């Protein structure tokens, strides 16, 4: 007998990724040879792999998760649904480092490899050397010395008309969530094992600012890369290199000074309006300006030219996710989940977001670089041209179909 296990209800191996939020899966008998009854009882368990991630199972959309699951599966080939979620605190580090087996009695009838792909703190050891290497490689390929798809991401965050779609108003957090997700999915198209790491800018993170990762600082404005770091070929706006220098008060072995810490940020308000407007300034703006004014990352028009920008904003998004978790702010119909003060186009809950909506001219920028939002084999959310309201329920808490297939290492599912 043989069974097929489909993760995220897909036969595509690139869909074999889960997060803390439960992924819909299914099992079906593909070869009933040896079966004597119309249904068989199949047990699904995880086989431990040293250093690998861990998952849990449950049969329905609700209920407790367990380490194994027994399902009654018809031999007719009809699929039986179930759910897999990563075990919080045990993310994967490598592609396919989780192995799931299906057994009838003691007989192995099917197996699949998958990965608990989670956005992690970019500092070592939680972010391994392998993860770091795969991340910078994918980023370098996406940039392709200024020739790659990365130019779209640079263009999206450049001119004032574009920046007004993304900054200074309620849409700041949803827009950047879509922006991060778009980039992450492009990176995953290059290397599916990559998840965007984040820079916890309220903690020391010396291992990020090294020649092997995002560039070492040796007193000059241009950061230094090791000989085999492909980011040494990083090129934006026609210029090779990354200009980044911490302000004198920022010792890279310590947390950057003057940046509101996580507790302070989460305590800013329980309502989205004041939370967003304050956190956009500090810690977000403050984190950008912990590098001096000659650095790319410290100016809104040039910041995405430095890859650090994406780690910084990944953390901004994590803080929002954590605030959402703390205050249960996933439901866009709950007033405190968003700021419903009438705002310019792109910032109101029902608005589509530029540039993914392709709308140009009028109240939107003159061009819309990059086309629609990148798709994922793991989910259809938030869609090709998401609306602001689509970006809130990233774990699919209110609506399971809204799950965006990303999670943070320290923000659990319910």
């Amino acid at each position: 007998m043989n069974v097929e296990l489909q993760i995220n209800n897909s036969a595509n191996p690139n869909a074999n990724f889960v997060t803390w939020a439960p992924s819909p899966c299914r099992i079906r008998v593909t070869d009933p040879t040896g079966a004597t009854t119309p249904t068989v009882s199949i047990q699904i368990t995880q086989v431990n792999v040293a250093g690998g991630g861990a998952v849990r199972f449950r049969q329905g959309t609700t209920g407790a998760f367990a380490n194994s699951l027994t399902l009654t599966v018809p031999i007719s080939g009809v699929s039986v649904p179930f759910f897999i979620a990563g075990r919080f605190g045990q993310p994967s580090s490598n592609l396919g480092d989780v192995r799931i087996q299906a057994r009838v009695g003691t007989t192995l009838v099917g197996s699949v490899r998958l990965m608990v792909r989670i956005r992690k703190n970019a500092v070592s050891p939680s972010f391994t050397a392998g993860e770091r290497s795969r991340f910078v490689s994918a980023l370098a390929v996406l940039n392709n010395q200024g020739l790659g798809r990365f130019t779209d991401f640079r263009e999206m965050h450049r001119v004032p008309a574009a920046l007004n779609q993304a900054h200074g108003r309620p849409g700041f957090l949803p827009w950047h969530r879509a922006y991060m997700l778009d980039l992450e999915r492009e990176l995953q198209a290059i290397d599916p094992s990559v998840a965007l790491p984040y820079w916890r800018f309220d903690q020391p993170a010396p291992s990020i600012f090294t020649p092997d990762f995002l560039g070492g600082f040796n007193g000059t404005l241009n950061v230094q890369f090791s000989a085999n770091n492909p980011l040494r070929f990083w090129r934006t706006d026609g210029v090779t290199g990354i200009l980044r220098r911490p302000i004198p008060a920022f010792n890279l072995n310590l947390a950057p000074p003057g940046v509101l810490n996580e507790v302070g940020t989460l305590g800013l308000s329980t309502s989205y309006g004041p939370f967003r407007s304050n956190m956009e300034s500090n810690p977000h703006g403050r984190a950008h300006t912990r590098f001096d004014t000659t650095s790319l990352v410290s100016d809104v028009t040039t910041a995405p030219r430095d890859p650090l920008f994406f780690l910084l904003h990944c953390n901004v998004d994590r803080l929002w996710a954590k605030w959402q978790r703390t205050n249960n702010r996933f439901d866009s119909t709950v007033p405190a989940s968003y700021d419903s003060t009438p705002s310019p186009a792109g910032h109101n809950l029902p608005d589509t977001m530029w540039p993914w909506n392709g709308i140009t001219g009028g109240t939107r920028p003159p061009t819309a670089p990059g086309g629609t939002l990148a798709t994922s084999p793991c989910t259809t959310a938030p869609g090709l041209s998401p609306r602001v309201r689509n970006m809130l329920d990233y774990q699919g808490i209110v609506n399971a179909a809204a799950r965006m297939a990303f999670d943070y290492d320290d923000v659990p599912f319910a």
Partner: protein
Amino acid sequence: MNKKHKTVKATKATRKPQKAAKVSAGQALSVATSTKKTVMQRVAALADMPLALRENDENLSAVINLLGNKNEPAEVRMEAVQSLQTASFSVATFAPYRGEYLATLRKVAQDPNQELREAALGVLARVQDGFAQKKLIEGLQTPDKALLPPEQALQLLSYDVHADAYSVARDIVDNPPSTEARREALRLLGSDTKAAPLFEKILLDKNEVTEIRQLSASALQSLNPQKLQTHAREVVLDPNEEDDLQATCLTALTHFGDSAALAQDATLRKRVQELSDKAPKQTKQGAKQYLEKYQ
């Protein structure tokens, strides 16, 4: 003008992770602008400001005035720049003050304090301000008028490929005042298509320092990728080449090379195999990455 002033040190107040600010913008501003308070107190108040700036946008004008006031301590003015840069991320809110900010920065760009000059020119260069470009180029041509050391001026000029900096950068490459200036001049020329032969020459010159040859490899990869791929292969095959340069060339081949051609290149693969067995760490890692892709 080049005399380096005392670097603004991290204060206890700025090192300490901030809790949610409870002070109002008015309170923070009155401390920040008060000459009766200590520098440390004023800097700390400014550090709190961004959180409160939005309560009254007129506060931005007050902070801009603080930045432009030569009588204020440099530490306070530096913190003012950081606060204003933070505020500038809210493009629409900041827009009415942008003009005042830029005009003030042009004044500050000529301040006796080098750190303040750097800060001001950094912001101006990034918005491709004609004033800043003119001053920086003037300084490179006439060192007596230089507002910044040449390597910094070149770095800031690289923010605009349309700045008239190539000819002065070429002069610096020919007659460098320092190795740093030469390196930055070369980096700037990395976007000048005419400079491809220069980078090719440097890459192949074993008398050049490795860092400059590596920089040339990056520039050539962009200006003439085919040439770089050819030379990268030669460098990897050459047993007498620098280890770090070989690692850089392997990285170029692995990530940006012609996959079809490299997959067929048995000679190169054999050599990379050797390097993956017995080479210094960086080269070994580069070799392994190459083999993972092309084996």
